[in-house]
């Protein structure tokens, strides 16, 4: 078995570009095969599964491709779909709403998560229980979370709505008004995902050695100074990673929002992800949906090459970790 695995790795190595050649590093050993042994399974699984779907999306984005064969012939339209998208006000609206969603919800989640991580990073009575239970919203099935929020915000029988009215809020139909509906979906997301930030940041915090903090204290540093000069710099990779992970998930948010508002009222909560789904499954226009996906792909690549590379490239991460 071992020999079979090794020869498989050799084949892959030969298949890969010869730019990945042997180099002796300061670690003092020839690393020839080593990286590939570690990387090969991931590369095989992910690319084998996803390569066809990506090519499919690329090709189909240049076609008028109805989801069901019953709709008739699938025609090549070149850049027709992309052109149609640029002229589609719903498309730009959905992009705007999605970006707004990301830029409002995620910083709030980060703030809450960070504050909670700092607060709960000590062994008080019931600490472990609180830290576990706090994660429940993250575990909650998204479609159920959306339904619960929809239920809570209903006039007449929604408990949250009744509570708000008792506190003096005007009696409005939260999901029936475009602005409040958008706020509601953001609140739902913040509620659900700030404990995710908390968990990641907490795990990062526990990895900070006590000596560094004690050393800062001895130097006379107060809470804020400790925070800014010790904790945040050390935690920066974790902070950036958690924001990144949230962004890639927020780009795909669907069930919760769909179940709460179906994209309405009007198109007030028709996020990019919802609109893509609407095109593919609602209007049966897989070509358009694929064009939207490729569009998102391009944006993601630009995002990765600029912001991520600047703040999170592997060299930067290593620098920040002081390794």
């Amino acid at each position: 078995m071992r020999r079979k695995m090794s020869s498989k790795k050799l084949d892959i190595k030969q298949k890969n570009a010869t730019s990945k050649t042997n180099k002796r590093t300061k670690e003092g050993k020839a690393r020839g095969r080593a990286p590939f042994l570690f990387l090969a399974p991931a590369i095989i699984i992910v690319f084998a599964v996803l390569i066809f779907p990506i090519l499919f999306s690329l090709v189909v984005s240049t076609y008028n491709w109805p989801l069901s064969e019953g709709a008739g012939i699938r025609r090549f339209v070149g850049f027709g779909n992309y052109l149609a998208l640029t002229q589609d006000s719903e498309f730009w609206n959905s992009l705007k709403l999605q970006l707004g969603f990301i830029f409002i919800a995620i910083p709030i989640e980060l703030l809450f998560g960070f504050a909670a991580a700092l607060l709960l990073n000590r062994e008080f009575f019931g600490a472990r229980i609180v830290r576990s239970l706090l994660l429940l919203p993250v575990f909650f099935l998204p479609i159920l979370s959306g339904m619960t929020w929809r239920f809570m915000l209903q006039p007449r029988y929604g408990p949250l709505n009744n509570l708000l009215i008792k506190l003096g809020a005007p009696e409005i139909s939260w999901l029936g008004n475009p602005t409040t509906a958008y706020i509601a979906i953001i609140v739902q997301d913040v509620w659900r995902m700030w404990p995710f930030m908390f968990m990641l940041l907490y795990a990062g915090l526990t990895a900070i050695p006590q000596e560094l903090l004690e050393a800062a204290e001895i130097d006379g540093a107060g809470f804020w100074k400790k925070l800014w000069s010790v904790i945040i710099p050390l935690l920066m990779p974790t902070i950036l990673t958690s924001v990144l992970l949230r962004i890639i998930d927020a780009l795909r948010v669907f069930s919760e929002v769909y179940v709460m508002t179906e994209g309405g009222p009007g198109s007030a909560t028709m996020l990019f992800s919802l609109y893509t789904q609407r095109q593919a499954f609602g209007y049966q226009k897989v070509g358009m949906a694929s064009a939207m996906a490729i569009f998102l792909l391009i944006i993601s690549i630009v995002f990765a090459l600029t912001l991520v590379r600047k703040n999170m490239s592997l060299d930067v991460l290593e620098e920040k970790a002081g390794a």
Partner: protein
Amino acid sequence: MIYFHWENKTPKEAIMKRPMLIVALEMVFAIALVGVVSAQTINVLFWDDAYPRTLMEKIPEFEKATGIKVNIEILQPPQVFTKTSVSVTKERTDYDLVCVDEGNIPLFASLMLPYDQWGPGKIYKKIDPNTVTPAMLEVGQWDGKLVGLPINGNLYVWMTRKDLIENPKYKADFKAKYGYDLGVPQTFQQMLDMGTYFYDNGIVSGGFGPFNGGPAGVFGEAIFMWYSFGTHFIDWINGKPTLVVDKAKAVEGMEFYKKLMKIAPKGAETMAHVERQAAFCTDPKGVFTQFNWPAQIASYEDPDKSLVSGKIVYSAPPAGPSGRFSIRGTWAVCIPLATKNKDAAAEFVYWWASKEIASWLVEKNTVPARTDALTDPQFAKTKPWLPAIAESMKYAVARPRFNEVAEVQDIVKKYWIMGITGQMPCNDAMQKIIDETKNVLKKAGY
């Protein structure tokens, strides 16, 4: 962690082997547990509501009688649409039987086996299409062929609170204020008067129960109002769907619905089926009157789920200035061309649409499409909605159906709701609907 246990083998070996083993074991386990694959199996795709769920109770009888095992996938209507689109082509299908909503028949017609080519049936004989109520039968017809058997009698039926209209105090009060007798509303004006009376006096939470949920449903309400005020929306002219709407009349219809929205329960702007049911059935005050799909009746009449079971009087919808109309929304059951189990699938349909099963379904408060089951005199007393549905069928109209209807439904839903909630003047909303619908039709090449 993992590495502790594999001292003898290299970690890689041990771990590489394990996932495969687990996966292999799981496949065996999964297959074994779900059941032995019997001689003949058919895969059926149902939509999710009380009717198919009720039918599922009876299916073991079919399986025993015929030896055909029925694998059921039951999903929400939009997902039924998606899965049918993805899974059924001329050459390949994951299902031997699919349920198709009437609006989607044009899309799938070319992929389905025409009814006249279905087998004669072994244990259950082929159903004569004429046993299906005529108003429903045309649902399954496209391009001159019957491509599926309509299987439920779903069209607007009107619900009104019996206890409210029979209450002597309200009767007297209403007569004094409005000059005519309280009763089941026969016209839109009566509906508005009575609803307003009950709403203004705080007797109900809503004088009228609108529907502002899924696009197809809102589209239904819009078409209902437009027809009732004298205009069609899209008609097939010269083989093309064409916009024929009379804007002025359509705006009248919208304005009237706007008035009805003012006496609707709080939160009506987003009321879908669940919220409507909550308002009508579980709210202590309830709603005075509204349309409903017969599929919901089972829940509304279930004393475990509804405070008003037994207190509902059913009728055909009230008449607008241009007449009485009811919107049809029937499901048909179709056999994909590519299936390898045509006869078994057909057998299942023949069993399902037989008089015996149809009567059993009626007994269980659901509404099949067989005329003889629906008009059976033994049910008229115990199932008061049946005569109402039969009456409604006289006025049945369908929503326009063509391939791009989904986009048009979205447009209508968006601006209809904006108009009726006052976010946009009805005139402007209607103009938007007209302009954008024209756009969609043009882009589709009509």
